[in-house]
């Protein structure tokens, strides 16, 4: 009898001992990982999206979801590595091939690639793939042309193309109502500000609130002023070339036949030649519509945020 008890007691003690050592070993692994090898780097060695799409059988979307979550965790790691940026594009491409209608990887991925990793061209290609595949009725679709426009404006300094994409973004009913004004501002900074006017007139017809209507109308006037000034400046340069000096007033331009008449200032003010620097100005108080960014020198906003921390 006593022997039996000792036997079972020994068995339980042994069992407890084994359990204890399992716990110790797992704790050890958690606090002092034995392997320096970073498993997450393996994400870079995934097969291509097309192959993976076949291998996933009918579960493409689940594989895409899991990969997307892994990508978020991988990119969110505190130690930034060069390999991350090269893997990110590949991962995004794989995910979006597995589930081409999934808007989040295009949207967040596109922003990450340009803002965090400075891979502007790859960001363009992800956003473009998104614009081709995501169904247009998706409520976040407009973010894709919006971020493309942002890339063109901020990193490339190409306001014309930026404005074109922003126009696309503004055409979606889910986009915020201030987008058209932004488009106008972008066009105002291109060589031909008047391009914005037909767009704004179209927007004026669709404006839903009186306040919005008022704002668009005033923006049209601002653009007009901008293009008038451009037009008058060109005539004035011509005048200087012919006569060797600047004209004293605008009527001299008409007299010389450089312009047919002085354009009517839409806000009710008058155009005049500034005596200080011989530039055309107006008596009304008009927003100069300059974009206050310096894309080449300033840091992207995400890095600025990090630096603030």
């Amino acid at each position, binding site marked *: 009898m006593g022997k039996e008890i000792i036997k079972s007691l020994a068995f339980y003690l042994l069992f407890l001992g084994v359990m204890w050592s399992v716990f110790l070993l797992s704790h050890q692994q958690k606090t002092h990982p034995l392997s320096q090898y970073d498993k997450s780097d393996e994400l870079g060695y995934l097969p291509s999206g097309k192959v993976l799409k076949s291998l996933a059988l009918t579960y493409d979307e689940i594989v895409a*979801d899991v990969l997307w979550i892994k990508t*978020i965790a991988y990119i969110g790691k505190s130690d930034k590595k060069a390999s991350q940026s090269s893997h990110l594009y590949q991962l995004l491409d794989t995910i979006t091939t597995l589930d081409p209608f999934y808007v989040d990887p295009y949207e967040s991925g596109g922003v990450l690639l340009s803002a965090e990793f400075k891979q502007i061209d790859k960001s363009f290609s992800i956003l473009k793939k998104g614009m081709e595949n995501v*169904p247009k009725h*998706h409520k976040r679709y407009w973010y894709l042309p919006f971020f493309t426009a942002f890339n063109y404006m901020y990193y490339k300094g190409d306001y014309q193309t930026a404005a074109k994409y922003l126009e696309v973004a503004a055409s979606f009913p889910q986009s915020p109502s201030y987008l058209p004004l932004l488009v106008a501002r972008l066009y105002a900074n291109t060589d031909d500000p008047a391009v914005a006017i037909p767009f704004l007139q179209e927007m004026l017809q669709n404006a839903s609130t009186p306040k919005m209507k008022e704002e668009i109308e005033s923006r049209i006037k601002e653009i007009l002023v901008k293009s008038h000034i451009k037009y008058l400046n060109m005539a004035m340069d011509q005048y200087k070339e012919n006569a060797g000096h600047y004209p004293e007033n605008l009527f001299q331009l008409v007299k010389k036949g450089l312009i047919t008449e002085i354009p009517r200032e839409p806000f009710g003010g008058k155009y005049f030649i500034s005596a200080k620097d011989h530039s055309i100005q107006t008596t009304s108080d008009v927003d100069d519509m300059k974009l206050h960014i310096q894309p080449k020198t300033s840091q992207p906003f995400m890095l600025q945020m990090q630096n603030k921390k």
Partner: protein
Amino acid sequence: MQKIIAIAINTFRESVRDKIFYSLLAFAVLMLAFSLVLGNLTIGDEIKIIKDFGLGAISLFGVLIAIFVGISLVYKEMEKRTIYVILANPISRTQFILGKYAGLSLTLMVEVVVMSGGLFALCYMKDQVIYWELFKAIIPIWFELQLILAAAIFFSTLVSPFISGMLTMVVFMIGHLTSDFRQLVVNMDNPAIKKMADVLYYTFPNLESLNYKARVVHGLAIPWQEFFLSLAYATAYTVMLLFMAIFVFNRKDVK
């Protein structure tokens, strides 16, 4: 007809008591719950992940149940020699196969209904909306499961459970691969591989045609013509497999 129903009900009772059925169903529900956790980890659309995992789980565990429960039933009947008792009654072998099929079909129905209920409940918890359009993905999955089940029964009349399980799995895998495979080899120079892709495409069922999951989850339009044609295709394939199973079983020497 009554005889078929009697066999079907018995088969249903037998299979829902099966431990495999319960454990698979438990894992399926677990997977559904897991999607909630994953939904929290993602950036962006949570409900999309829940829908993906829910529909995927209905399909995956349905296939596993169809295979694991489907392959052993005819074989078990012969192993335990109960088939003599059944066939000694005025029951034809055709009725036996059809009864088995109907019973298992009912078992799969339980899986699909339980899982769909869970999925709808989860979506309702998250969004307070019942996404009725999910049925456009669930119904084709149900038809696909019928096809897989018919294949499992067909193979089980031919070979041992282990091999017929493998073969059914292969049908499921190739069925989803063929359309992709055919697109992958389009640019290849090798005519033999192209021929092989064509042969595979026409001999195995094209199960991808029943996959509406992505389009349903992302709210894309599904043409009704395409929808019903694919269901008709699956039905025709299922009936053909059942005919083949009956044909083989009628000629089988039951010892």
